[in-house]
């Protein structure tokens, strides 16, 4: 049976990697995600499952170790926080280009630069709009609880191997460092090379025996071949949008106003809509669980129902661009969020909803104009 524990988000994620049957973890410490490597070093999973845990000499070394291990078809993970992820981006682009499965975790802190060690969601653009160079995207999962920090590790590996593509778990310092009750999954055994080939196909470099050689590379100097590769990547992203979009609607059925928020901001915004409903304001929350693919269609449909949308993020306004693209100017969309490592309170979110959306002239004007057209 699975166990119930009180754990930090970072620890739950580390334990989940062992239980998901990961073959290797390569990382380099940085606040606020150091508990991941700290936990793995203490747990010594090489004794439990044979999983390799190695502290690399730098973030760049770690991501290239991931590339190497992933090339052999192994389940491999790395984690870091914002400045460290910036260092890994070249490697992440290579992983995407070489079509390698890997799980990358970003426990976001405030930036730019070295910024602050406190929580932030300012790496949204970096996560969903490329980050590294070239035509690629990452499948991005945004956990909002310690339970999801645990559950999403296995989900991320499943997606990474389904598409042969790197997957990002985008967390933040709040979810990483807080403790909650978590139900751990049962231990999965690590796959042998034979099981791997049977389950995911014969693509990895495992030592050629009676087969064509497999080549893992992101380089293609023949333009036609390179274009074909880019088209293949785009097909994967289209399929992700069709098959693996995830989101959650909370109190949306009768909502007049909508908050869109992910991760820690979604938790805070949920309390804000509870407070709003106590005041008689019908507010709802749409929580994107995947940031790519983005819940465009659900938002597009909700825009017909609500009078205005507030995008709540711990940054200066990043996801709001995707909200606006999704609703195609059907309703006013505003942003609210604290930065610099300051976390907005539910009360602040509610106040922003009232000031920027409910009492906003544009919101009122928008609906009057619409009703006059009708």
């Amino acid at each position: 049976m699975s166990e119930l524990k009180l754990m930090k988000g970072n620890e739950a994620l580390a334990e989940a990697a062992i239980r998901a049957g990961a073959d290797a973890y390569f990382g380099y410490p940085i606040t606020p995600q150091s508990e991941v490597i700290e936990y793995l070093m203490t747990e010594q999973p090489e004794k439990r499952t044979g999983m390799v845990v190695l502290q690399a000499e730098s973030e760049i070394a770690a991501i290239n170790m991931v590339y190497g291990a992933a090339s052999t078809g192994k389940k491999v993970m790395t984690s870091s926080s914002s400045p460290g992820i910036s260092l890994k981006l070249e490697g992440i682009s290579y992983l995407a280009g070489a079509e390698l499965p890997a799980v990358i975790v970003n426990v976001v802190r405030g930036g730019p630069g070295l910024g602050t060690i406190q929580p932030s969601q300012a790496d949204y653009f970096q996560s969903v709009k490329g980050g590294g160079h070239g035509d690629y995207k990452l499948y991005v999962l945004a956990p909002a609880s310690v339970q999801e920090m645990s559950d999403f590790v296995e989900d991320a590996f499943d997606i990474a191997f389904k598409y042969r593509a790197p997957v990002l778990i985008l967390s933040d310092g709040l979810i990483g460092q807080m403790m909650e009750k978590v139900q751990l999954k049962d231990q999965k055994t690590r796959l042998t090379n034979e099981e791997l080939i049977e389950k995911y196909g014969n693509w990895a470099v495992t030592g050629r025996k009676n087969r064509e050689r497999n080549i893992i590379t992101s380089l293609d100097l023949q333009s036609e071949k390179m274009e074909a590769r880019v088209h293949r990547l785009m097909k994967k992203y289209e399929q992700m949008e069709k098959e693996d979009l995830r989101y959650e609607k909370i109190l949306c059925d009768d909502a007049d106003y909508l908050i869109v928020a992910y991760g820690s901001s979604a938790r805070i915004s949920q309390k804000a809509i509870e407070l709003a409903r106590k005041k008689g304001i019908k507010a709802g929350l749409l929580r994107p669980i995947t940031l790519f693919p983005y819940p465009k269609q659900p938002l597009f449909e909700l825009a017909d129902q609500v009078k205005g949308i507030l995008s709540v993020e711990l940054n200066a306004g990043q996801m709001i661009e995707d909200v606006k693209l999704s609703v195609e100017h059907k309703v006013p969309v505003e942003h609210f969020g604290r930065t610099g490592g300051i976390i907005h309170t539910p009360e602040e979110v509610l106040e922003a909803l009232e000031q920027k959306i409910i009492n906003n002239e544009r919101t009122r004007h928008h609906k009057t104009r619409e009703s006059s057209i009708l």
Partner: protein
Amino acid sequence: MTEEIIIAGFGGQGVLSMGKILAYSGIMQNQEVSWMPSYGPEMRGGTANVTVILSDERISSPYLKLFDTAIILNQQSMDKFEDTVKPGGILIYDPNGISVHPSRTDIEIFQVEATKLAAEMGNKKIFNMIILGGFLKEKPIVKLENVIEGLKKSLSERYHYLIPLNEEAINKGMSSIIPYKAKEKVIQ
């Protein structure tokens, strides 16, 4: 039932571990719990606080502006968190080192002389358990037996011999907590 608590003091006072024991006690009686720390880059001597929520329902925000209970262990925290107690809520503090006492009259205020009592008991480290005892006397949200189970879970086994001492400290806190009547601030 939902209880929203802030525990605030210096790093090294056992603020975070007190919160952890409380959270584990909640799990022992099948409640939802969250424990959200906030501390500066410095360790011992810096400020540290933790928001602990115990609830029978799914917890939405782990980060709050207002609390049912504030447990305050130094002057800086008093300055910062006295105003965050909801009207009708409670504030518990150790008067040791407090120069500006709380002044609100719309909340219940209690004192536990935990620093002094811990010194008398010969172990400064049980300070936080004395405070926890005081809190549980006023807000018996978790049963003592579940606190002991919570202690077992949050202490590594080599420290389990300390559990009777911790239990004694909790009882000491329960019998030592006293109400404090705020003197209203004179507006000049």
